[in-house]
């Protein structure tokens, strides 16, 4: 009973996050300005982190947690670097 409920809810959440990733990719390809594309790329990083976290719940393994933490870390650094580049034209002043 409860395992069907959990599987259904997990499938629904994974479907929602996948659809969110598709929306982010559409905005990334279509975005009229450069800041739109960087915003979409940052959202795509975060959606991928959420999807890997959901995979970790589904496979009942804690290995996926480290991957999600690493993706959050690298996404933050790359988004900051891209935003700095947009503002000044160089990353390190």
């Amino acid at each position, binding site marked *: 009973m409860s395992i069907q409920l959990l599987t259904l809810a997990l499938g629904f959440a994974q479907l*929602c996050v996948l659809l969110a990733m598709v929306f982010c990719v559409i905005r990334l390809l279509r975005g009229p300005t450069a800041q739109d594309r960087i*915003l979409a790329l940052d959202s795509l990083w975060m959606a991928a982190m959420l999807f890997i976290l959901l995979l970790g719940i589904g496979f009942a393994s804690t290995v996926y947690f480290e991957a999600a933490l690493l993706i959050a*870390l690298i996404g933050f650094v790359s988004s900051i670097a891209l935003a700095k580049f947009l503002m000044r034209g160089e990353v390190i002043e």
Partner: protein
Amino acid sequence: MSNSMMTGMHDLSLWLAVPVSLLLVLGGLITLTGALGLLRLPNFYQRIHGPAVYITVGTGCFLVASMLYSSAALQRPVVHELLITGFVILTAPVVSMMLMRAAVYRDLRKGNTDNTPGNAYKFPREH
């Protein structure tokens, strides 16, 4: 605790499976809503609000669900998801602020102060 042959998921008791499922469904809906806002809103300064919602609230829902599920499945308290929560809560506003500042600088430098209909913000005109 018996392991299911189909999915590898653990069988929880029902009073714990219901809140975990509710949190998963709520997080999925919030994530979908935020990404739809990123796709559909007309202006960059409105679009930046959608991902901010799902990066904080959607991630929070999924992480609380993961903590409850792992604690029940491994039969010991599992709190290492709090690392991701703290990291995301610390870094998401920083990214939003840097992107917003970059966008304002670029728009001011290009000189388009009121460009599109449905513009949420008016830039100060230079005297």
